[in-house]
């Protein structure tokens, strides 16, 4: 247990952010977790009230507050619709950091974040080993989705339908790259993100294919590290800052127009969370972060807004329904671009599902800690997907893809889960 005075001080640092909450309770209408539990502690208002209670010393159970704070998808639905403009997810990230400093990081998380994630080479080697051994630990559960169950790991993973690790990580196939701008006159830095590197390598390949097709130069530096979101969501600012540093060393000051990622969570983290969390860093680092963040763009947005991909008029072909990742739609305001991309070839048309813009229930480690709630939220999404009768559900975030695959595979649905860039690349 840490220093209670320091905790109060850290929480008072976010007091201005907390004070903006007028307790109107309107966030109850959008919070996916609250919709399941109807408990005040699960909605933004309740969490903010607890933080104020703690910082103003009306309550003292910091562990209890942390527990409530952790039961959150960080989906940003509350922030996006708050009439008072409260930046709830920013508050939660900062508060998780303060509370974790006070309660200490769990030994497992310490081992993962401080021992592994912040050492990309070690992380890569471990995952590589994992991919070779995963057949021993898991059994094929669903041939259609290519998922498996992990009976030996079921105490941790339950009956999840897990997307397998790639036999060869993307970054192993493409350790580094630096090609000049072609006919588009543009050059991007490419940040695939962990899930594309280690599971969804096809998305990485699709990005390279599309860039080549449009004559966009690609800068892919070696030694990229995780964006830091998993560490930060667990309140581990130390690891987060280390990861930011590693990535800045790769990208800062290098010549490119835009930094693209095919992972909505990575995009939102690099673009919004890095500058938000940079307050305590030195001036030089802060400037570097601001300069880099300004260049970060989602891959769909880049292709439509910068390269000029247009939808084909009266797109027909196969039906695709699109799930808006929270970190793409609500957080970055990117809604139309992935739909444009999917309809660019004329081979697919969009069939909208009900509530396309609501959370799929993945929420990073939320899925591990609160699998039941996560699944209930996910099943609603699954029902909406299936109701469209589309053959394919596309989205813009590998984390959502994992959740959607788990939800669909467990019901034996024959709906393919794809990234919009994969669908686009296929047609070139």
């Amino acid at each position, binding site marked *: 247990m840490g220093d209670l005075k320091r905790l109060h001080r850290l929480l008072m640092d976010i*007091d*201005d952010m907390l*004070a*903006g909450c*007028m*307790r*109107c*309770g*309107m966030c*109850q*209408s959008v919070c996916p977790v609250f919709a399941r539990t*109807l*408990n*005040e*502690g699960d909605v933004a208002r*309740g969490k903010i*009230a*607890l933080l104020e*209670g703690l910082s103003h010393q*009306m*309550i*003292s*159970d910091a562990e*209890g*507050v942390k*527990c*409530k704070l952790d039961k959150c998808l960080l989906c940003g639905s509350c922030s996006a619709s708050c*009439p*008072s*403009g409260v930046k709830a997810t920013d508050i939660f990230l900062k508060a998780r950091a303060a509370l974790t400093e006070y309660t200490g990081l769990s030994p497992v998380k310490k081992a993962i974040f401080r021992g592994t994630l912040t050492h990309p080479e070690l992380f890569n080697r471990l995952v590589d080993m994992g991919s070779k051994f995963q057949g021993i630990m898991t059994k094929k559960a669903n041939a259609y989705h290519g998922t498996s169950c992990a009976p030996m790991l079921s105490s941790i993973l339950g009956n999840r339908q897990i997307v397998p690790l790639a036999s060869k990580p993307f970054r192993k196939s493409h350790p580094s790259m630096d090609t000049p701008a072609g006919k588009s006159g543009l050059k991007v830095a490419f940040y695939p993100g962990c899930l594309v590197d280690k599971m969804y390598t096809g998305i990485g390949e699709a990005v390279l294919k599309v860039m080549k097709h449009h004559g966009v130069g690609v800068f892919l530096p070696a030694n990229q590290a995780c964006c830091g979101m998993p560490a930060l969501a667990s309140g581990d600012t130390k690891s987060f800052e280390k990861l930011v540093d590693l990535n800045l060393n790769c990208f800062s000051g290098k010549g490119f127009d835009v930094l693209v990622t095919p992972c909505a969570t990575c995009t939102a983290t690099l673009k919004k969370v890095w500058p938000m969390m940079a307050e305590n860093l030195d001036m030089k680092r802060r400037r570097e972060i601001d300069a880099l963040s300004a260049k970060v763009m989602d891959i769909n947005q880049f292709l439509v807004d910068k390269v000029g991909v247009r939808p084909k008029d009266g797109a027909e072909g196969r039906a695709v329904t699109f799930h808006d990742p929270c970190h793409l739609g609500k957080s970055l305001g990117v809604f139309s671009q992935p739909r444009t991309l999917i309809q660019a070839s004329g081979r697919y048309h969009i069939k909208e599902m009900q509530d396309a813009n609501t959370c799929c229930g993945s929420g990073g480690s939320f899925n591990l800690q609160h699998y039941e709630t996560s699944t209930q939220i996910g099943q609603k999404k699954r029902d909406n997907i299936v109701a469209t009768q589309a053959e394919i559900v596309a989205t813009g975030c590998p984390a959502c893809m994992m959740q959607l695959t788990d939800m669909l595979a467990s019901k034996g649905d024959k709906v393919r889960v794809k990234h919009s860039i994969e669908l686009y690349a296929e047609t070139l």
Partner: protein
Amino acid sequence: MKKNSLVGAFKDLLGAENVMESETDRMNYAYDAAVLAPVMPGLVVRPRNTEDIGAILKLCNENNIPVTVRGAGTNLSGGTIPSMGGLVMLTNGLQRIIEINEADMYAIVEPGVITAQLASAVAAKGLFYPPDPGSQTVSTIAGNVAENAGGLRGLKYGVSKDYVMGMEFYDATGTHVRTGSKTVKCVTGFNLAGLMTASEGCFGVYSQITLKLVPPPKASRSMMAVYDSVDQAAETVAAIIAAKIIPCTLEFMDNFTIRTVEDFAKVGLPTEAKALLLIEVDGHPAQVEDEAAEVETICKANGASRIQVAQNAEERNKVWEARRTALSALAKLRPTTVLEDATVPRSRIPDMVRGLDAIAARHKLTIGTFGHAGDGNLHPTILCDKRDREEWHRVEKGVEEIFELALGMGGTLSGEHGIGLAKAGFMEKEIGRGSIEFSRKIKRAVDPKNILNPGKIIGG
């Protein structure tokens, strides 16, 4: 309520998962949307079904435990701030729509049904449930009835109380009571449903409510009228009513609100205008056509500098977008938002707006005023920071003067937000000693141990 055996009794009754006693859980039910200090309850319980409500109340009554029942906790007057160490009962989980009867046009619902969800379920059957408080996407029907909540459509369609046909509730001892009926007419016994409406959880806990439904209007037409003076806008309101036209909505925005909304939402409002009226008439298409034209003429005759009539759904949306964003645009200006709702006879609106300006100047306050002009129900909204003691003191003074201003014009403390704790102290000024004493006598008779939401409305 520290006695463990009691907590055990509630757990036996409801199952441990429906009894919350941790510090964090109790903190989570210590407040509502009113700008008041939180008060920690001793225990929070969740009835699994409507019968549990009776059993919980019986146990509380036998053990002298104060009970505060809570829906969505969005009331603005402290109605769900519990007694220190008391019990909070959550009825937001009781969400069944039991029946929507198209032939007899009523709906029977459990207390926790969300207003907007009922409205859309009713609309799906081709009927209409008009009360539409700004909080309708989260507020519960029980909360609406217990506060007699209004909304934008109050002028023509009335407020929550106008839709309560009957109800079932549990009294302080946990005894089940039924009143009213599914029929349009019913004079069987006292009008207990009337007494229970707007009772803020002080007389009993609703377990089922029967609501009147009406046929939806076939057509509607919206318009925005711009004015160089508040007087002209107010005269327009009076002239519309004098012409025997009752618009379904007749909303007002002052210059400060107009500027703030425009800054925030960029919907193309004239920022130099002193007042805006947003008007919607609805009903039979032919009648709507006539009334809209007449309203337009009245607006012009009373000095509107510009009138914009929505030609299609999109334009209609735009007109209402401005009104919908009023509160959120204002709320973003400063940390604390004090939303008042003192109400005056509609002819006094210009005096009220002038009075509010004077109060703002006198106490150096930022006040944006918008609201239901047709009802004289304005929402002067004070933007401030309650952490600044000196400023907060000025706000308290200002609020007091707003009440006095409204009462001085023959108005009322609260049009729709309720009394709760926030305004209990001002009640006597409006209704007099006799009314308070009479109310207290009723309260003592139906709740001798004063366990039902003590301290609300009539103090004590």
